[in-house]
């Protein structure tokens, strides 16, 4: 691949942000449409990536250029079947969240530029194959997100923004230490320093080293995911963030953690991964049940969706540490699914907030009568989130459950309880918000979805159905890469993936 697709994909949003910034400040009617149109360019580019992507293991669209040769840092980009879906998800969610940001009153130019910069950072993270480049993007993302929450958030935004920033910065500081340690080990072994992912894969680390490196990387990513018990920044950040912020935070940024686990923790430290997988799985399962249980009693819709994220992300983590084909596949596809469905839910809550200026469940009631289309879309997203088969949420959850049952039956069974709880908290919330008679006067005249808002949901609904009924479009591309990870674990440890031959007794 001669044309540097990925670099261009990173650059386009940055240029778009610049274009948006140089627009005349008083022509406010221009800002959003321009940003929206420009944000569609990456969608097209990602579409080309998707079309040209070959279902095979290994990295594609690779480009490499030395940055600091002495330290072995290079601009090394490339994607595999794990990164591709996430890049697609990012590029799709950005225009959607831009289109949903019409109510931003405070310097909308800056806001849009921040969103576009965030996109560049996210694509960079998912395509970086050099650990320093990865780290730089990983950190760079915090800045636009910090401002998005801190400037355009609601009342308690500063607290939330700082909490968000400190939490993640704490994790990434640990990770930086780990990255440097890896490079030092690399230098000790081969004589030349390198931060290159493919070089570091060849390191044969001792179990002890693996253990603590796994821990520092793991903590950084666990905070990002967020896993129990380091999840408390998430509800605050979500409640305070503006709609676009919540969508991107839940939709893509949380996936940095799970992606990091898949990309680094499993292949780089297979030994420790196998050894500490039960710990991770335990936390994941606690997260599933705990997040769901706490979500039940939330009084704030956004907080409810935020805790549901904790629960759903638990599924992803459980799938990842199952070390089975379907577990990993399910984890990856669940990342995409969660991004779409939770994104949709946050969009809906945001639109509700724009209309009523409250997110408290108790303030609503009977909205299905006044806004039937809205209620329909909400119910649809709710069921996608609950994991109704035929919609996308189920595919990921089911793959994860089946995959993790093979290696960790008890965990899988407990996790299945999350499926029941999800129905309780989401349907209960739906019941309280939408059903009954609209008895509060302010709920009687709430406008239904307008054309713009309806159009926002069209792509999401199409994706939910497509991924629910024909997930093969993604699964085919994901599988070789996840298989490679399992092969690597099997090759370096004594872990053996259970295989199921039809007609033979399992286990």
């Amino acid at each position, binding site marked *: 691949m001669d044309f540097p697709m990925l670099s261009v994909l990173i650059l386009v949003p940055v240029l778009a942000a610049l274009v948006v910034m140089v627009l005349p400040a008083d022509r406010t009617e221009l800002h959003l449409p321009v940003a929206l149109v420009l944000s569609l360019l990456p969608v097209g580019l990602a579409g080309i990536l998707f079309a040209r992507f070959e279902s095979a293991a290994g990295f594609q669209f690779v480009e490499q250029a030395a940055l600091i040769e002495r330290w072995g840092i290079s601009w090394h980009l490339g994607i595999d079947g794990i990164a591709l879906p996430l890049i697609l998800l990012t590029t799709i969610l950005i225009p959607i969240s831009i289109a949903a940001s019409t109510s931003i009153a405070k310097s909308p130019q800056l806001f849009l530029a921040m969103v576009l910069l965030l996109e560049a950072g996210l694509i960079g993270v998912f395509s970086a194959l050099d650990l320093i480049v990865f780290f730089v993007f990983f950190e760079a993302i915090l800045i636009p997100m910090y401002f998005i929450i801190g400037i355009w958030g609601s009342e308690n935004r500063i607290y939330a923004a700082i909490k968000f920033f400190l939490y993640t910065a704490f994790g990434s500081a640990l990770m930086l230490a780990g990255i440097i340690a890896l490079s030092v080990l690399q230098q000790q072994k081969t004589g030349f320093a390198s931060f290159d992912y493919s070089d570091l894969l060849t390191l044969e680390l001792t179990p002890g080293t693996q253990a603590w490196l796994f821990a520092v990387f793991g903590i950084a990513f666990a905070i990002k995911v967020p896993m129990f018990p380091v999840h408390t920044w998430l509800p605050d950040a979500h409640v305070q963030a503006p709609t676009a912020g919540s969508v991107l935070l839940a939709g893509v940024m949380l996936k940095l953690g799970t992606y990091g686990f898949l990309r680094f923790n499993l292949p780089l430290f297979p030994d420790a991964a196998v050894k500490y997988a039960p710990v991770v799985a335990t936390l994941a399962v606690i997260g599933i049940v705990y997040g769901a249980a706490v979500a039940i009693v939330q009084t704030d819709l956004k907080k409810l969706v935020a805790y549901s994220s904790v629960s759903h992300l638990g599924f992803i983590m459980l799938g990842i540490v199952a070390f089975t084909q379907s577990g990993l596949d399910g984890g990856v596809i669940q990342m995409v699914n969660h991004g779409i469905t939770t994104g949709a839910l946050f969009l809906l809550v945001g639109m509700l907030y724009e209309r009523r200026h409250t997110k408290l469940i108790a303030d609503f009631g009977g909205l299905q009568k006044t806004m039937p289309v809205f209620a329909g879309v909400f119910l649809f997203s709710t069921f996608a989130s609950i994991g109704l088969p035929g919609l996308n949420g189920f595919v990921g959850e089911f793959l994860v459950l089946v995959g993790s*049952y093979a290696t960790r039956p008890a965990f899988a*069974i407990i996790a299945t309880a999350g499926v029941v709880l999800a129905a309780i908290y989401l349907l209960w919330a739906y019941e309280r918000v939408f*059903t009954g008679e609209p008895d509060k006067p302010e709920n009687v005249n709430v406008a239904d979805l307008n054309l713009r808002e309806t159009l926002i949901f069209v792509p999401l609904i199409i994706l939910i159905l497509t991924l629910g009924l024909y997930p093969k479009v993604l699964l085919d591309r994901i599988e070789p890469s996840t298989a490679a990870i399992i092969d690597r674990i099997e090759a370096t440890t004594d872990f053996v993936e259970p295989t199921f031959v039809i007609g033979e007794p399992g286990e």
Partner: protein
Amino acid sequence: MDFLADYLWLIIALPLAGAVALHFGGKFLPEPLPGLVAVGAIGTAFLIAAAAFVPLATGEAEAHILMLWDWMPGIGAAFEIRWDQLSALMTLIVTGVGTLIHIYSIGYMHGDPRFSRFFTYLNLFAASMLTLVLANNYAMMFVGWELVGLCSYLLISFWFTRPSAAAAGKKAFVVNRIGDFAFIVGLMLVFTQFGSLSMSETVLSHPGEVLSPGTATAIAILFLIGAAGKSAQIPLYVWLPDAMEGPTPVSALIHAATMVTAGVYLIARNAAIFELSPVALPIVATVGAATALVAALIAVGQNDIKKVLAYSTVSQLGYMFLAVGSAGYVAGVFHLMTHAFFKALLFLGAGSVIHGMHEEQDMRKMGGLRTAMPITHATMLVATLAIAGIFPFAGFFSKDEILASVFANGGYYLVLWGVGLFTAFLTAYYMTRQYIMVFWGKPRWVEGLKPHESSLWMTVPLMVLAVLSAGAGFLNTPQLLTLEHYLEPVFEALHPAHLESELPRILGMDGLAFGLAIVSLGVAVIGIATAGFVYARSSERFRQWFANATRRPMNASENAFWVDKFYGKTIVLPGKKLAQGLASFDSFFVDGAVNGVAGVVQRIGMSLKPLQSGFVRSYGATFVAGVIGLVIFFLTRGGL
């Protein structure tokens, strides 16, 4: 008719297309066009199914599988249709009864502002139920399984402005989810054992070579819990009575004829696995018998016309469980079919009554309706006799066959047989009670009410169903055994070793079978007679005495033995408390720990604050001190 084999997907696709079309275009159509569209969709599906059924029934065609598309190849999940005798029969029931109920709904939902939306949901439900029935893959079956739950949710809370309807819909879905939880775990177990989720590679291809009795028991129990959720068995039956909040056609279609029988279908489909386990079938039978008895006892005390039918449905479903639990699969499926006819008829009749009584559901405010609503009365009478098990109506044959299958197993099953027999008595009793309370006696209507017979949209389906309820029993008379032979390819391989009975499995018209039939008929007659005496023929004084004597049990029955309250106190409330506790744990401890760390850091910072006095000279002094310290340190370390 072989060309139809490749077009079986139309059976699912047509109602689905109807649902999609009505969803987007329905609001532009005037009444009753959306209803007609929906009827057309499901009616055509029925015709296709019937056409494809004929070669199967005549033996010209074999069961076959139609692969649609791969879903999750990694775990063997795919969309594939299985067209065999069992699924074909189920398809016919679903589309046939479904079509009738669709037609009925055009009349029943007349004037509702969300008329087209109702048919959208009905069509969607039909598509989902057919997905469930036709699936040759557990994953696809689960799609249908959940989608019918979704439709049930949507239709129960169709009148969402009523808080009770919305709550009932949610309750139904959540309770079902508890069953699904077990079902999913069962699927995981199936996959890890077989390496596939396709039925033709798992349950239908010598599962005995793969499964140990222990695993088979585990899978069977998990499936049983799943089935208990969907088919409203103990302990998960509580959602079904509440589900009566939905429009009556919904109760007829979903909560009587089709969806709730999915559990029976599931067990019949997976009979091969159940038989591998030494205990699974007896457990199924026990659950069924217990449910049948308890629900029948509750039905006796109900005063809401639909609630009686709801508990009666639960009871009859228990009967079906009892049947499949006794390895009487054909009897179970047979009863499933006849029940679909007469219970749908009962519900539709009840709907007609409610309609005629202007949304009155309390039987205590009815009475004497037989003249005002002659067609409804006649058809309801047929259905009542059918469910009570009076010869020659359909219920007699199917119920008799169930009791015979149970009896045939001997041993412990004899107890269950007794329970079944007693339940038959109760069924006859409470159905007669209902019939009398609604149609006979003096009118107890609210002032000014003028009951009227329903429109043809509603009465025609009633009459069709009445014919079916009356005659369907002859499909499987003990002598001809048409259904038995038809279903033979599905169940022939099954012969549970541990249910060795001294009696022949299929009872011919020998003396014993005849005797059993007489006994069950007699019990039904006694039940009818008792109810007739108590509610119609007895003197006022006797009725007073009877009411006093049975006040306490009737009160318990009317309140459904306070099971809902019990669940509320033992499960829902503690669950909510636990969630509340976890939420405060989250904000006080987990988040508190984080904020605590931040607080400690802040306090350290505050305590160091005086150092930052703002006086340059203090800083200078500190700086010099630092330099001196460092110099001394390096000098001493350097060992000058």
